[in-house]
Every structure is written in C-alpha cells, then in structure tokens.
C-alpha cells in the first residue's frame, strides 16, 4: 500500500483508511472468513494511521473501533436476551460468549500499534513493552461486554447455573459445560490476570451460599431419617462429592475459597448433629481460628475429624478397653494435628483442651451410644458413682480399668512391649488431666492396685512403682500418692517377714508354714472398712495362724494382727472322679469346700453350711454362688438342689453337694489335670461395707470441700462468694469438680457452725435466681412486699417504694401486704385495740407515698393479713408447720426481725412461719423485702417444700443507715424523718444529721441519695448558693460519693440538696393529710404522741427495719 500510493501515505489520515478497515473489523467480529491479505492490510492500515495521522488519528481509530464493538455486542445481547427460559438463555449466552472470547484474542493483534501510540501519548514516556500490559483493545472489548450484556443478565446466569448445580446434587444429569461456561465468562471477564474480583464477588459467592443453604436443609433431614451413623457416612460421601464438584466448577486459583467452602459445609453438617459431642466444640472453637489461619489445612483437619466422629460413635457399643483406646487415639491425633498443622498454636491447644474436657466428662456420650444403637446390648452398667444428684461420666472408672489391664497380667499386657505399655500409661495420664472427677479414678485405681498386690498379679513391679510417681507428677494429691507408696512398702516388708518366718519354722517340717505367705498391711494406707468377717477356717490354717500371730508379736511388740480373710486366698487340690485339679480360691471358698472333707458325698443344706463355716449370710450366699455358677465354667464344682437363678433364692433348705464329675475342658476335651482360678475379681470389701464405700465418695467430697473452704478463709480472711468458689475449684480440681450446690451447702454448714461469718453489710441480693430466670422466660412474675403495721413509717420506706415502682414498670404483678397480725405477734408492737387504726394509717401513708413517686395505685393489689391469716386452711397450715419447725430454726429465722427478748414468746416463734405461709396464700412467685429478712427467707425456702408447697424466690433490697450516723437511738427524734414531718422539722433534723466531711461509710444522708433519690429521680441537683460555687448536678451516684470523699462537696450543700428532695417527696403527702379525717386517724392510731413516741419507735419491727434501719437497729441492740 505504501508503494502504491506514496502521496496518500503522507496524508495517512484516519478518514482515508477507515473505510477500508471497517469491513474487515466487522468480519472479524462476526467471525466470518477474512483473507490473509485483508488481515495483513489491516495491520498496515492501523500502523499507518497511528504513525502518520497527527490530527488525533489513534484516538479516532479507538473511538470508531469502540463504536463497532458496541454495536456488535448490542446485537449479540439482543440475540441472547431473546431467550426467556433460563436454561436456553444460558446456552445462548455461552455460545455468544465463546465466540466473543475468541475474538478478544484476535482482534487486538492488528491494533498493537494503536495501543503503542496511545499509551505513548498518554504517558509521554517511552513504552514499557516489557511490562506486558493488558491489551487496550481487549480491555475495551471486555469492558463493553461486561457493561452491556453481562451486568444485565449476570443474576439470571448465576441463578440458572446454581439451579443446574442443585439439580446435579439431586442426582440429575445435565451439561456441566454450561456451568463451566458461566464460570469461565466470569473469570475471563476480569480484565487483569490477578484480579478475580468479579468472579469472586459473584459466582464464587453464589456458589458457596447455594452449597451452604442446600446442606443446611438437607443435612437435618437426612440425619432425622437415617440416624447418626449413616448420616456420618453420608456426610463423608457428600464432602468428597463436593470436593470434586468444586474442582470442576470453581476456579482452581481460588482454592482458599474451596477450602472454606468445605469448611462451611462441614460445619453446617456437623453442627446439626452430635450437638452434645466433643466434635462440635472442636468445630466451633476452630472456626474462627482456622478461617483466619491457613485454609489449606482445613481439609486435612476435616477428614480427620470425620473419621474421629465415626470412631466416637462406634465406642458406644464397646467396652472400656476400646473406649479408652479410642479416646487415646483421638487425643493423639488431635495433638498431632495441632502440632504439625498449627505449630502448637496456643489457641488451638486451648481448643483441644476444651474439647477434651467435654468429651471425657460428658455423660451424654454414653447416652448417645445407647440411642444410636438400640439393638446393641447395654454393656455399660449404670454409672457406678453413687451421687444420685447428677450422673457423672464413667470415664474415670474406665480409665482406671484400662490402667489395670495394662498393669496386670492380662492378654493385653502380655501382647505389648514394656515401652508400649509405658507410653500408653502416660497417655492415660494425659487424658486424665481433663477428667473432672479424679477422685473416682483414684478410688478405682487403688482398688485395682490392691487386688494386684494381694494376688501377686502385677505384670511388672517396676512399672507399678513408676506409675505412682507419674501420678504424683500429674498433680494427684500428695496424701493419696503417699498411701499408694506405703502399700508397696508394706508388700516389701511382708516379703522380708515371710522369709524370716519360714526360716524360723524350718524345724517344723510337714506343716503348712512353708507354703504360707502372709501380707501384713497398714490399716491407714489400705483399709476399706475394718469390719471383721467371722469364718471357721480349715484346721490346717487354724493351726498356722496362731504361729504367725505369735511370730509377729515377738517381732513387733505392742501390735496385733487382724485378719482380713475376705481378701486372703490360696490354692487347693481338688479331686473328682475324673482327675485332680489345682484351684485358686478365696479363703471363703476354701472354708466352704472344706466342709465336705469329712463327708465327701453328702448333700449339705444351706443352713448347715452356715453353721459349719460361720460365714455371715450374705457372704455365704456369694461364696456358694461363685462355686455353683462360676461364669464361663461348663461344669461347676458344686451343685445345688433345687437349682436357682440367683444367690438370693437360696433358702435354708437348699442342698449343696460336690460335683463328682467335675473336670476342666481344654480344647474341647476333658482334662485330668489342670489349674483353674475361681477367685475372679477379688472382693475387697464385704457386702455390707460396699454401700458405705459408695457413700464415702460423696462424704469425702464434702469433707474435702469444707477443708478447702476453711483453708481459703484462713488465708484470705475476707472474700467474696464468687472468688471463694473460684479458689475452691482451683484447690479441688485435682480431686473433683465441686458442684455449685455442694459448695453452697457446705458454706451454709460452716456458717451455721460458726466457722465463718457472712458479711451482713454486703448482701443485697436474690435467693433463687435460677428459678426467677425460669419464670421470666415464660411469664411475668408476681410478687409481694409486706409491712408489719407497727411504728410510723418514715422516709426510708421510699427505698422499697421505688423498687416497687420498678417492678411495676417491668410488668410484675405486685401485692402489698399490711401484715397486721405480724405486728401484733411481734411482741405486741401494735396493741390489739389499735391494730385496725394502725393498718388504716399504714394504708393511707403507703398509698400517699406511692402516689407521691408517681406509682399508679390501680395496678397494685392491697391485702390485709388478717383477711386470710385467720382462715381455717391457713391456721391448719400454721399448726402443720409447727410440727416440722424446731424451736432453734424458728428463733434463728426471726433473729433480725422479731424483737429479741430473754425468754422469747411463742408468738415471736410463730412469726417466721406465718410469713413463709403468706407466700403460698398470696399465690406469688416471689417475696421482696430488706436484707434483714434474709433469715426468714431461707427459713421459707427450707420449710415450704416440706409442706408440699413450692419454694419461692426472694428479692432483697439493701438497708439504709439512719440519718444520724451508724449508731442511732430511736429515742432521738432527730434520727428519723417521719413522713408527716413539716418542712421546718425536716430542716432541723437534716441540720443535725451525721454527715462528717469525707466519711462515706456511716453516712445516712449519702445513703438516702444513693437508694432513694437516684432510683426515683435519676439525678441529683443541689441548689448551691453562688457564694459556694453555684448549683450542682450529678447524674450518677458514684460521682456524688467521689466528690464527697474528696471533700469537694460540702456536707452542708449535700444536706441542702437532700432536704429539697425530701420536701418534694413529702409535700403531696402533707397535702393529703391536711384532711381532718386523716388528721384524727393519725391521732387515734398513735395516741399521746409525746409519751407514746418511744413505744412505737423502740418497737421497731421486722418489716419496718427494711426501711428504717435507723431506729430498729438501735432497739435491737
């Protein structure tokens, strides 16, 4: 072209060349054939335009190109959009996209020069070809495609793709190319290689969401329909399927996303199942961490977890050996995982520890097993821990049994090498760390050890002793470990002693002494119940025993031996008509069998056997049963008539006789000689002491708890309940986890027995919080507040009033009880003739007070005690209660409320009982009162259930100290502010109120601010005169206290503020009482005020005290 038209070349303008170029470009876009020369001319033309057209040729070319591309795309779009149905749309789109995508690779080629000149121009620097930038033209094409087609229909595309995937999940076949196509179009549309943003935000996200929601619905369905085990297999399968699917449909580069998909999926699946099981903990614990860390690890993690879950489910039907093996395996695997994959990251270690704690202590693991495999035999006995209160995991017992299997001569211990056993033991100890009730493990371990030592059945003595040291190392209590060590010592000492005994007896040939081995134990280390069992021993033994005793006495003067025949055992030769056998038997079995020595063929009755052996009934039954029905033995040593199914069915006349045809079967053939062990599991305690033994675990726990509490208290002197519990758990954790209930009981016990004291100042609180929460979850609470109608109410009554306002706000039903009978019973604080008037007065005042703080009265229910407390039912209940209540309890309950006198009246003892019954008769869920009521409240909690009524909740408000300081006398008129005091009187009393600068502890004025003003007004304003710095405003009490403590707030100003609030509260009441009717009521209810003042005031009663500690305290003291 250059040669043909040199002149035009000079021009080289865009306008000149474009008409030639355009058809070719269009052809290219349409994917119509383009000849080689056309293709090459295009290159040339572009080149020329770019190089020679200096009037903006390249940009014109760019614009024109863009226009053409857009036009093409619009056409394609119309074409694609014409398909209404999703799948067809998808197909059309993908076809169009494929075409376009190919063009994207070709079309940019001729325009290389264009790009070159454009970039050159724009940047003004030398081209950086090396950078291999994305071609401008391709970007142009992609962008336009994205803008016009893709963004319009991407949701439809995505949805239809997801629908297809969903179909595939449901097992329907379809053209997977369609989904792949969508994914490709997403990926390729990303203009730069590394940035997969569009793909990620759309396709991948949608895929993950779809997967999750799919399994969220499917998983529970499957679980429900097919049970746990099948479910887990299914889950595994699905995971693999999803893995393949993801590899197919998701971009490979986004592997992290895939992993997180699995993770998500896995989570969804698992979350719904074994919710009680360990695995969940693990999953949830790991969730954040894993996502934050390397997602690549997740796959490994999840496959393992799945396998573990399978294993865990299998355990259900297995015995202790399998259980522990699985447990250890699980532990090993997780430890390895954490170590290898997460470099022992402490967060993962914590997660593992938490999970394991759950596993080993979870009782539901066993329950789960049982439900999952209803057909399987229930191999596990019911939890052998005696606490009926709450089941505990059998894990510690199983662990101990497993240790026994490793340490005893068993097939298992023979199979393993010494090193293997050691490793396993150490692993058991590792797992033991997570067990809460280590005391159970210790108990079982000790029992097993005792058996091994007594029967000489240890596989390896050295290992036994190592084990003791290891137990010490893992933090078992020292006294326990020391006892174990002493047991070994005893055995060693006994061995020496036996040797000496044998030497001494050498002269005495023919006697049994040679074949005798005595184990002399230290009662403290071994003993479990020192109960002696009587038995008449075979003559040979009867001869030897005194010799042993005498020998021992000579060796250790001052000591004597006490035989534990229930533990001793021996070997006997037994002859039947078939052959002669060596039997290992217990001494009891031996004694029983010896009965036949004199009359080998006789049938002896149970009664006679009892006489002959002198064994206690229970022991004899057990012994005979072991000879008549030894498990796994085809032919028994003894036979009985009639046959029975159970040792309890033996009667005195049941006859027993020796089985003359006894023989041992080996390999299916009867043997003439042989050895047989009839001891089985050596009984360590007698039948009788077995129960005691079980109880002793609980008993010991109680003692340990008390001991630990005292220990802590001695160290700390003063401690909060919460902190005490924490420290307690810390101290006891190596033995057991004390239950909240037990801690509480023991604290109460210690308080009752004066080992410690409750800090009375600090107990504003709730009794029965858990019950309260239960009720609140279902409905509103109904509660009552009672007041004995004794002395005149004073301003501290505003404390409970403000609380009552709060209760009403929360939707509680509140009853107010005017306890007139109580007022009378409490040392006649209200004389009988004045009772009605007093009650009337109280009602008026209380109502006025409530109105003054804005409580709507119609929402309250007012009740008079005498309205129902004199009814037949109530009276009968009072009598019933008196038959249950001890004088001590009644006195204690009323100690802080009822007036204490030297010889208490019966009325004062009835008082707490009546208050307890009020709760039932007022039909409330809760009672509200001051903390001084606490003892009555606990009294009610104890006794109501005994009458068959339910326990109520108790809410307590703190007590307000009196206005004139901590010590106050009721005789001081200034100590209290009466509800009806005039402003002048208030002013005078406030002036005299004790309010030492900086003293915040004994400050009645501050207390009033805290408990009345802030709850009611939410703020505290002081109209301080400008002279002293102007008005003050506090929005919370802490600020007031701090200011006052630092003496920034002057007592005078504080009093001024309080005074104005008091008047504000009292004014409406004063107004109301201007009514002459009420005036006369006041006078008649409290006659001769000047003289009588002392009487009502000094008679501060229980309820009043809630409010007005001021006077009450003083009189009680």
């Amino acid at each position, binding site marked *: 072209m250059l040669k043909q038209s040199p002149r035009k070349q000079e021009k080289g303008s865009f306008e000149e060349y474009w008409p030639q170029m355009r058809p070719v470009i269009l052809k290219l876009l349409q994917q119509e054939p383009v000849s080689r020369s056309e293709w090459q001319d295009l290159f040339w033309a572009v080149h020329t335009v770019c190089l020679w057209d200096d009037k903006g040729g390249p940009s014109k070319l760019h614009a024109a190109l863009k226009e053409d591309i857009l036009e093409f795309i619009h056409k394609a779009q119309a074409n694609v959009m014409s398909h209404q149905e999703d799948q067809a749309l998808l197909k059309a789109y993908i076809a169009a996209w494929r075409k376009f995508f190919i063009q994207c690779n070709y079309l940019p080629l001729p325009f290389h020069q264009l790009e070159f000149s454009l970039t050159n121009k724009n940047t003004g620097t030398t081209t950086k070809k090396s950078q291999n930038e994305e071609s401008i033209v391709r970007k142009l094409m992609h962008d336009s495609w994205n803008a016009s087609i893709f963004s319009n229909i991407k949701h439809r595309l995505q949805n239809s793709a997801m629908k297809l995937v969903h179909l595939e999940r449901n097992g329907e076949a379809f053209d997977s190319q369609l989904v792949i196509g969508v994914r490709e179009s997403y990926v390729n549309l990303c203009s730069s290689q590394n940035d997969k943003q569009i793909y990620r935000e759309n396709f991948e996200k949608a895929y993950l969401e779809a997967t999750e929601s799919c399994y969220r619905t499917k998983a529970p369905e499957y679980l429900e329909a097919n049970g746990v085990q099948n479910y887990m297999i299914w889950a595994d399968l699905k995971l693999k399927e999803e893995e393949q699917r993801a590899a197919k449909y998701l971009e490979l580069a986004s592997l992290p996303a895939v992993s997180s998909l699995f993770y998500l999926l896995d989570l969804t699946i698992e979350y719904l199942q074994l919710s009680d099981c360990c695995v969940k903990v693990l999953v949830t614990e790991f969730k954040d961490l894993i996502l934050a860390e390397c997602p690549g690890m997740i796959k490994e993690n999840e496959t393992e977890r799945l396998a573990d879950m399978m294993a865990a489910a299998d355990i259900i039907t297995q015995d202790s050996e399998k259980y522990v093996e699985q447990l250890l395996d699980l532990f090993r695997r997780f430890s390895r995982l954490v170590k290898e994959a997460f470099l022992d990251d402490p967060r993962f270690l914590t997660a593992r520890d938490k999970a394991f704690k759950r596993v080993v202590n979870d009782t539901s693991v066993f329950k789960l097993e049982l439900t999952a495999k209803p057909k399987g035999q229930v191999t596990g006995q019911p939890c052998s821990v005696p606490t009926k209160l709450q089941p505990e995991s059998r894990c510690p017992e199983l662990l101990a049994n497993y240790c026994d299997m490793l340490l005893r001569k068993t097939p298992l211990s023979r199979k393993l090498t010494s090193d293997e056993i050691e490793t396993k033991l150490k692993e058991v100890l590792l797992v033991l760390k997570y067990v809460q009730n280590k005391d159970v493990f210790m108990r079982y371990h000790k029992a097993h050890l005792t058996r091994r030592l007594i029967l000489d059945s240890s596989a390896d003595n050295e290992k036994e002793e190592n084990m003791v040291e290891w137990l010490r190392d893992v933090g078992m209590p020292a006294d326990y470990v020391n006892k174990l060590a002493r047991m070994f010592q005893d055995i060693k000492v006994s061995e020496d002693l036996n040797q000496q005994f044998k030497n001494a007896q050498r002269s005495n040939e023919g006697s049994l002494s040679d074949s*005798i081995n*005595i184990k002399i*134990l230290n009662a403290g280390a071994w003993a479990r119940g020192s109960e002696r069992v009587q038995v008449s021993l075979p003559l040979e033994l009867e001869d030897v025993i005194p010799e042993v005793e005498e020998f021992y006495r000579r060796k250790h003067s001052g*000591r004597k031996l006490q035989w534990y025949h229930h533990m*001793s055992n021996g070997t006997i030769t037994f002859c039947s008509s078939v052959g002669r056998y060596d039997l290992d038997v217990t001494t009891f079995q031996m004694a029983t069998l010896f009965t036949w020595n004199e009359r080998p063929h006789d049938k002896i009755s149970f009664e006679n056997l009892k006489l002959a052996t002198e064994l206690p009934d229970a022991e004899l039954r057990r012994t005979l049963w072991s000879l008549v029905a030894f498990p796994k033995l085809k032919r028994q040593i003894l036979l009985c008539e009639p046959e029975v199914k159970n040792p309890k069915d033996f009667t005195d006349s049941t006859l027993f006789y020796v089985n003359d045809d006894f023989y041992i079967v080996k390999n299916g053939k009867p043997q003439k000689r042989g050895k047989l062990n009839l001891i089985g599991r050596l009984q360590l305690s007698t039948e009788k002491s077995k129960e005691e033994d079980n109880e002793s675990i609980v008993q010991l726990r109680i003692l340990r708890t008390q001991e630990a509490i005292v220990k802590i208290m001695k160290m700390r002197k003063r401690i909060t309940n919460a902190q005490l519990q924490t420290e307690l758990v810390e101290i006891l954790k190596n033995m057991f986890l004390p239950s909240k209930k037990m801690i509480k009981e023991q604290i109460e016990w210690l308080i009752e027995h004066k080992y410690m004291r409750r800090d009375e100042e600090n107990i504003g609180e709730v009794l029965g919080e858990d019950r309260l929460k239960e009720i609140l979850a279902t409905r509103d609470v109904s509660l009552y507040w009672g007041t004995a109608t004794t002395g005149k109410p004073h301003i501290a009554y505003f404390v409970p009033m403000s609380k009552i306002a709060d209760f009403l706000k929360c939707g509680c039903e509140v009853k107010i009880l005017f306890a007139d009978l109580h007022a009378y019973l409490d040392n006649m604080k209200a004389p009988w003739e004045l009772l009605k008037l007093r009650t009337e007065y109280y009602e008026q005042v209380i109502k006025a007070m409530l109105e003054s703080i804005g409580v709507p009265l119609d929402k309250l229910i007012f009740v008079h005690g005498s309205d129902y407390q004199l009814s037949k039912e109530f009276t009968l209940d009072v009598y019933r209660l008196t038959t249950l209540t001890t004088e001590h309890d009644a006195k204690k309950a009323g100690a802080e409320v009822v007036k204490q006198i030297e010889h208490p009246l019966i009325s004062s003892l009835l008082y707490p009982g009546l208050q307890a019954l009020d709760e039932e008769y007022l039909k409330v869920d809760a009672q509200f009162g001051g903390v001084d009521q606490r003892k009555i409240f606990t009294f009610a909690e104890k006794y109501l259930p005994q009458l068959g009524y339910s326990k109520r909740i108790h809410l307590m408000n703190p007590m307000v100290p009196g206005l004139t300081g901590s010590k106050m006398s009721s005789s001081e008129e200034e100590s209290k502010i009466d509800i009806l005091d005039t402003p002048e009187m208030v002013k005078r009393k406030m002036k005299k109120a004790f309010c030492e600068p900086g003293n915040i502890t004994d400050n009645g004025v501050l207390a009033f601010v805290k408990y009345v003003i802030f709850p009611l007004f939410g703020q505290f304003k002081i109209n301080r005169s400008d002279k002293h710095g102007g008005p003050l405003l506090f929005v919370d009490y802490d600020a007031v206290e701090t200011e006052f403590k630092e003496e920034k707030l002057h007592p005078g100003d504080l009093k001024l503020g309080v005074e104005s609030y008091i008047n504000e509260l009292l004014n409406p009441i004063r107004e109301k009482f201007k009514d002459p009717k009420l005036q006369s009521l006041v006078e008649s209810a409290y006659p001769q005020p000047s003289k009588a003042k002392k009487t009502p005031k000094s008679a501060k009663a229980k309820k009043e005290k809630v409010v007005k500690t001021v006077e009450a305290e003083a009189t009680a003291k």
Partner: protein
Amino acid sequence: MKVKIKSWRGVAVWKWIANDDNCGICRNGFDGCCPDCKMPGDECPLVWGQCSHCFHIHCIMKWLNSQNVHQLCPMCRQEWKFKE
C-alpha cells in the same frame, strides 16, 4: 480327703494394742503416725505408761520434755512412768 491346701496367702492388718483409737496428744489415729512422721510403723511407735494410757512416742516425749518439774500423764495427771 478330697480337698487339700497347697498354699495360702493370708492377709492381715496390724494394729497397735491400745485402748483408744487416737493419740491423746496429736489426735491422729494410732494406725497413722504422729504429725512429724511420714510412715506409721516402727519409725513412729507407741508407748504405754503405767497408767495404761498410750501415745505416739514422739508426742509424749515432746510433752515430757516441756514439763520441767513433774512429769505427768497428760490424760490422767498421774506421774508418767513408761510401762515395762
């Protein structure tokens, strides 16, 4: 005779021959040891007085050493003499 004993492994616990369960001084059981010892047995024996009261030897020795003038049994206040 049909049944014959081949060997026998007897089990017994030892006890101090004492008329009380606890040491009157340290209140620990006699099958335990005095507070200063670790193992009951020969290292922490009991002793009897002529008044028939008995104690851990370590306990009574401590007591006797603290009495300057008369050495009395802490239980019955008779003069303490070891029983032969």
